[in-house]
C-alpha cells in the first residue's frame, strides 16, 4: 500500500518539478535548420572490411548452451507513451 502511494506521489512530484523547472525534451524529428552536409560531404559508402579486412575478433562462435529462461510473469512489453529519461549509460528504449 505504502509502495503504491509513494509511486503515485513520485509520478506527481516528477511531473510538477520538471514543469516548474522548465525541463523539456528538445527532441525533434528533423530540424528545418539542419546544417548542410557540404563541409563534410555525403556519408562515405565504403565499409571498413573493404579497406582493412575483417578484424579477427569478429569470428563468431555460438554459446554452447543458453539456460532456459524463467517464465516471464508480466506479459508482453508495455509500449511507453513517453520516453523515460535517460539517467546514465544509454537512452531508454521506446517504441
Amino acid at each position, binding site marked *: 500500500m505504502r509502495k503504491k502511494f509513494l509511486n503515485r506521489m*513520485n509520478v506527481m512530484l*516528477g511531473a510538477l518539478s520538471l514543469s516548474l*523547472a522548465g525541463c523539456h525534451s*528538445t527532441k*525533434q524529428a528533423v530540424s528545418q535548420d539542419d546544417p548542410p552536409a557540404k563541409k*563534410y560531404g555525403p556519408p562515405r559508402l565504403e565499409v571498413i*572490411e573493404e579497406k582493412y579486412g575483417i578484424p579477427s575478433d569478429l569470428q563468431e562462435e555460438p554459446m554452447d548452451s543458453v539456460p532456459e529462461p524463467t517464465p516471464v510473469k508480466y506479459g508482453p512489453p508495455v509500449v511507453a507513451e513517453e520516453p523515460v529519461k535517460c539517467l*546514465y549509460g544509454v537512452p531508454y528504449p521506446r517504441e
Partner: protein
Amino acid sequence: MKARLKIALWLERLRRKNLKELHPLRQLFWESTLRCNVHCLHCGSDCVSSVQTPDMPAEDFLKVIDTEVTPHVDPHNVLIIISGGEPLMRKDLADVGRALKKRGYPWGMVTNGLALTEARFRELRESGLRSITISCDGLEEDHVWLRQHPLAFEGASRAIRLCASEPRLTWDVVTCANQRNIDHLPAIRDMLWSMGVRDWRVFGIDPMGRAASNPELLLTDEQFRYLMDFIVSEREAGRHVSYSCEGYLGDYEGRVRDHLYQCAAGISVASILIDGSISACTSIRGKYYQGNIYKDSFWRVWEEEFKPYRDRQWMRESEPCKDCKAFAFCEGNGMHLRREDGSLMLCHLQRLGQK
C-alpha cells in the same frame, strides 16, 4: 536562483527521498569484459586489449538474472546495459542479447563502434538490442587522438550511420569534451547532424583512471562554463543536446538536461562488474562495492545494502559539502566522484563559480 527552480528542486528532493525508500531497480549494468580494441586516454576502466581479467561467463550473469532479479521485478521495466571495455569484443554478445530478450528484458550497450559492422549490427538488432550509445569525441583528428587508434573515427562514423538508418532504434552519441575539442563543438555538432545524429550528450572527463594524470583531458572552469552555455544555446535552438547525468549544476538545472539532477547510483541503478562485484555505476569501485555475486545474493544486497548510496549524510563530514547550502539538492554530487577516503574529486558548483 529563480523561485520556480528552487521549488522544483525541493519537490525533486522529496521525490528522491521516496525513491530511496522504494529503490526500484531500473538499470542494471553488466561489465561484460575489460578487453577493448582501443586504448582511450581517458578510460576509467583502465581497459587493455589483452585478457588479464577474464570475461565473466555469460551463464553466471544469466543465473543472477534468472534466480535473483527476475523473481522480483517486471523485466520490461529493467534496462540491462552491457558495458566494458568494449562489449563487441565478446563473441557471444548476440547470444546474451537473445537470452535477455527471451526473458523480457530490454537491453542496450555502449560502444566505440570500431567492430560494429553492418552484419554484426543486424545480428544484435535481431537479438533484441533496443538502445545503443556511440562514443564520438570530435572531428576525426581529435577522436583518433583520444581513442588512440587510427581507425577509431572510421568505426564511430560507420556505427553512427548504421544507427541513423534504423528508424526503430533508440540511440545517441556521446562526446567527451576536453582541451582539444572544446573549441570545435559547433563543428562537431554540424558533423554529427550531417550524419543523422539527433541526440547528442556531451560529458566532461572526470579526474579518474587514466585521465587523472593528463591535464589535456580536463576542462578548465571557464571551458566548463562555456560547455554549459553551448548546450543551453543548442537546446534553445531546438537541438537535443544534453549534458551528462552527473553533477548538480545550480542555475543551469532545467536548462541542459531533460531532467533535474539526481545521482541514481544504488537507488535505481546497479551493476555487476567483471569479477562479480556488485556496485552501482560501473565507475564506482573499491570500497563502495556492496557484495559479490559469487558469495552473496544479489537481490538481498540490492534490498538491504547500498546504505552509503541511499543515505548520503556521511558526505557532509568533509569539504566542500560540510556547510554547503546546496547539499539539500546536490547530496554530495555523484557517487562516482568520491575517492576511497570519501573526499570529493569535483564539485560542479565550484566549477561554475556558484559556490
